[in-house]
């Protein structure tokens, strides 16, 4: 029987390449690195054994996307920032009749992706959205906590990212997008908008991150979790950047009107990327090169208030790149099938995926 063919769109990026490495190492599929930066893709592919096939793809061209998807069993979409590209890629994947998983981390893009649910069902395509670190592992842990409760009321998610842990332009553009506008949260059973960087709350992580003063950021979890987890009343998503002093810089970018248009964002991304080593040293100590995630799920069990809290700390590329690879293999091998657009908490085999992540040394600590 022919092996499944998995095409990683944006496979030469920081996160996409980690997914490619995982898929190649699994030996369970034929892997294709599809990227706009073809020379970089060729160079990275040559470092792997066996080297995956390389293809050019332009996310702005439906024809180019369809060409890259020819013969594919599953598409893994890692082309960011997602608020620019996600709603161009998914319709092409559905038209090609290919199952799909992405690491979309923008709330506004997620709303657009969910609108393709009917089309995906009609074509029999399973499209798993937001299957990275946050969203992704965060949603799986929200589901794990909710399943342990009789009634779930609150889900609070906090991520911590470090300037020392990622250097991709898409990540910088995403962070700017997430902290510079009103962002969705789910409060008392309704979606409301709150200013990004408001709602400050102290949240504890194990060393080396420690306690952070996290704030609301734009992310998909408050958009999807109330749709898929019944009864939840409040869903918040907070984020925090390391080192601590980078918060002042972020607020300054907003206050000085330096990131209010896409043109300004592009210019700022180009300026900030080469400065990351310097920025990681703002303040008195170097930012730890690590990312963190905490999920607190509260509600009632046996008539008593109860709460489950989960934490993980690892490098951003592992946390973000391994989950979509694991999920792509589930889809490719027919272990999961649910036509439509689905978030990780909406029907995926949560414990099976978390077990596969644990086997790859992604540790979830219960605190």
């Amino acid at each position, binding site marked *: 029987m022919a092996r499944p063919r998995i095409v990683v769109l944006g496979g030469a990026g920081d996160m996409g390449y980690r997914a490619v490495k995982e898929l190649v190492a699994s030996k369970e599929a034929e892997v294709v690195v599809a990227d706009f930066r073809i020379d970089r893709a060729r160079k990275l592919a040559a470092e792997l054994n066996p080297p995956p096939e390389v293809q050019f793809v332009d996310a702005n061209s439906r024809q180019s996307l369809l060409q890259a998807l020819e013969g594919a069993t599953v598409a893994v979409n890692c082309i960011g920032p997602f608020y620019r590209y996600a709603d161009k890629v998914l319709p092409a994947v559905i038209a090609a009749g290919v199952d799909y998983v992405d690491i979309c981390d923008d709330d506004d893009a997620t709303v657009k992706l969910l609108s393709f649910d009917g089309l995906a069902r009609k074509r029999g395509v399973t499209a798993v959205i937001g299957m990275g670190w946050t969203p992704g592992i965060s949603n799986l842990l929200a589901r794990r906590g909710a399943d342990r409760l009789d009634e779930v009321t609150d889900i609070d998610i906090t991520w911590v990212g470090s300037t020392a842990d990622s250097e991709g332009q898409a990540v910088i553009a995403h962070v700017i997008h997430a902290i510079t506008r009103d962002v969705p949260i789910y409060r008392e059973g309704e979606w409301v908008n709150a200013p990004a960087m408001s709602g400050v709350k102290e949240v504890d992580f194990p060393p080396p991150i420690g306690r952070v003063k996290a704030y609301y950021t734009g992310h998909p979890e408050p958009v999807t979790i109330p749709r898929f987890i019944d009864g939840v009343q409040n869903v918040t998503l907070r984020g925090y950047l390391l080192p601590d002093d980078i918060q002042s810089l972020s607020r300054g970018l907003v206050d000085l009107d330096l990131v209010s248009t896409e043109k300004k964002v592009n210019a700022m991304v180009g300026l900030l990327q080469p400065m990351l*080593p310097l920025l*990681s040293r703002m303040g008195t100590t170097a930012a730890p*090169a690590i990312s963190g995630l905490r999920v607190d799920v509260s509600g009632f069990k046996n008539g008593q208030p109860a709460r489950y809290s989960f934490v993980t700390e690892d490098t951003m590329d*592992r946390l973000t790149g391994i989950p979509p690879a694991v999920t792509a293999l589930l889809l490719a091998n027919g272990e999961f099938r649910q036509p439509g657009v689905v978030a990780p908490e909406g029907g995926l085999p949560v414990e099976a995926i978390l077990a596969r992540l644990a086997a790859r040394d992604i540790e979830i600590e219960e605190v």
Partner: protein
Amino acid sequence: MATSAELKTALDDFAARANGNAAVRKMLKEWSRNIHLDCADTGETYTLVVENGRVTGIVPEAKPPKDIAIMAPTDTLVGMFRGQLNPMAEFSAGRLKFVGSAKDEMRLDAVVDIIWK
């Protein structure tokens, strides 16, 4: 001027602290590099061998491949690996040269900070 023996002792101590630190292990998963330390004053070279986040060897020669190179006087290298000197400050002052990716530079910088914090 620091001696070769002092540098070797500083590197052994650094390796033991790094390998015993849970936070460093989280940060360096899958990180494998040969770090060449070139003593600008004596001409000696040591290689710090890191495999999957653990220092597995300190060899008194330039072991290929050269993933990262740090060039500085022996005193500076000893001070840096003992946590007495800030690598970024030494770099800015022109007393230390770093050849490698920005990502590796930030990772090493953070490791030194965590170990000696």
